């Protein structure tokens, strides 16, 4: 019997209406606080933003720290899911 898979804790960060680079600073602060959990995928950071530039700056910074990032467009905003190792 294989061990039960534990779902990661999802930290939601709603920064709709904010623009870069303020968005980047907010997300970096969250990443810094949860770095190990995010790398180990114990946690995932779900960022909601409607500022397109954020979908470029956040993944670039996160991947430089060795954390996996995916971006998807949801209705009128973007969801950036941060967590897991590259």
């Amino acid at each position, binding site marked *: 019997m294989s061990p039960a898979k534990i779902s990661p804790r999802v930290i939601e960060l709603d920064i709709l209406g904010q623009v870069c*680079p303020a968005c980047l600073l907010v997300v*970096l*602060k969250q990443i*810094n606080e949860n*770095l190990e959990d995010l790398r180990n995928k114990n946690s995932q950071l779900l960022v909601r933003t409607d500022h397109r*530039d954020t979908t470029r*700056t956040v993944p670039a*910074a996160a991947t*430089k720290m*060795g954390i996996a990032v995916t971006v998807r467009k949801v209705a009128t905003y973007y969801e950036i899911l941060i967590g897991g190792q590259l």
Partner: protein
Amino acid sequence: MKNPVTADRGEQQYLRYIRDKTNQLLKVMGTEALREEELDDQALIGLDPIGTIAESFSHILDYLNETISELRVAKDELQAIFDATGVGISIIDKDYRILRCNEKQRAMLLPGADDVSGCYCYDAYGKRSAPIATCPAKETFATGRQAVTREIIKQGKYFQVVTTPFAWDEDGKVTTVIEVSLDITEKKMAELAEKEQREYYLNEKSKLATVLESLSEGLLVVDSSNRVLSLNRCAANILGHDESRIAGKLLPEALPGPAFMYDTPREIINGFKLPYIAPDGAERHLSVNMAPLLDSGTKWIGRVITFHDITEEKKQQELYHRTEKLTALGQLSAGVAHELNTPLGSILGYARLLLKQENLTQQQREQLAVIAEQAKKSSTIIKALLSFSSHGKPKQCRLAECDLNSVIKNAVCLLTTELVKRRIKLVTETTTLPKVCADAWGIEQVVLNLAMNALQAIGNQGEIIIRTAFHPGRVRLEVRDSGPGIPKEIQNRIFDPFFTTKPLGEGTGLGLSICAGILNENGGTIDIASSDSTGTTFVVILPSKESLDA
């Protein structure tokens, strides 16, 4: 006390400093500067932007260090693989200079060389002044694709070389290739040795085939189930079939004989005399040898059968025995004839003398006539005996150049009356012949004797054909009659002295044996060529004069 204006200005300066440094750091992060309307001072201080970015930089640095460590390990691993691999690897630039090569490459091609970096590969590896036409690196630089050369010689060794593009310039042109060389010298040497060995075996096979084909003996090779695997030309000639018709046949079909020939395949049989009927119906006599065929491990895999045609040899032997018998009989006959000739002469002489007396009664006259007639008949037999014995003796024969066709013509003249009387047609089919060196009188006797035998065989009404022909070195005379033929079972006895099929008192049985004797003296032979219900053909062979002169 603190001056509020000074304090406020100081705070403003501090915030400006924070914003400037934050923007400086954000620029490093690859994003634009903060606008005050987006993030007021209080919110900015609350975010601790410098601390946040510094901490992020710290994480980035950690990750970078981890990555560098991993890359270093990976590089070491790759270097170990590069050096430990069993193939030679070189990295070559577009000028064919060696950028790097692994230990294997160095050991294979440059033993003792410390560093070949910067050397031209064609010089370092092949002692050449330029890349060869089949250089795979050349092809890869030209095509941008992987190239394989199955066999390339470097430093006297054989290599299989693969080149793969490794780096490209901005225009997509290959600037560096990785060349992988696999040393195939051992394989190549093994291939060459195998090729040499194969050629050796093919040569040996060819030699053996030539030897087998040139054998004057027939040869058959059969497998363990008695099936013919191969045969030589002589075997096909003796057996009277094409090689293709014999190969694959079972031995009893190819060479029919008694069961023991096939039932004891592991035994050696030497000189077994085997009668064989050829496809044309001719009976041949073969001397057969059989031996088991073993492979290199002494495993029995079949048999080798050799044979030769001893038909002529057998005939010669029979002739020899007949001659010997004739000689013995001749000596005996000569003695007897000599002893009887004198008293018989007296009997005949006195009988004739008495017959001349006039006071004889009719009965006495008749009785004396019988005595004289029987004595004369006996005298004829004695003459024949003496003639026979004279041919059995070794003597100096008076041979002279003569024409066989003329001899035949003379003999035929003597038969005219008898032929007419018996209504027998005599046909002579002569061809121009070279001279023979023979005793013309003796040969005429032979022709006469054969013709007389033919007459007697036919009886009345029939045909006799006398035919001559020339074969290289010899002339041939055929006498064919349309008589009833000679039974097969007595054919081998007809040349024996005193053997006759005629009623008692009608033949001496010496005719053919005298013919054989005459021909023997003349260096010729006589034999039955054929005999069946349609008639008999006798064949006489005499050597031509040229062949004797030669």
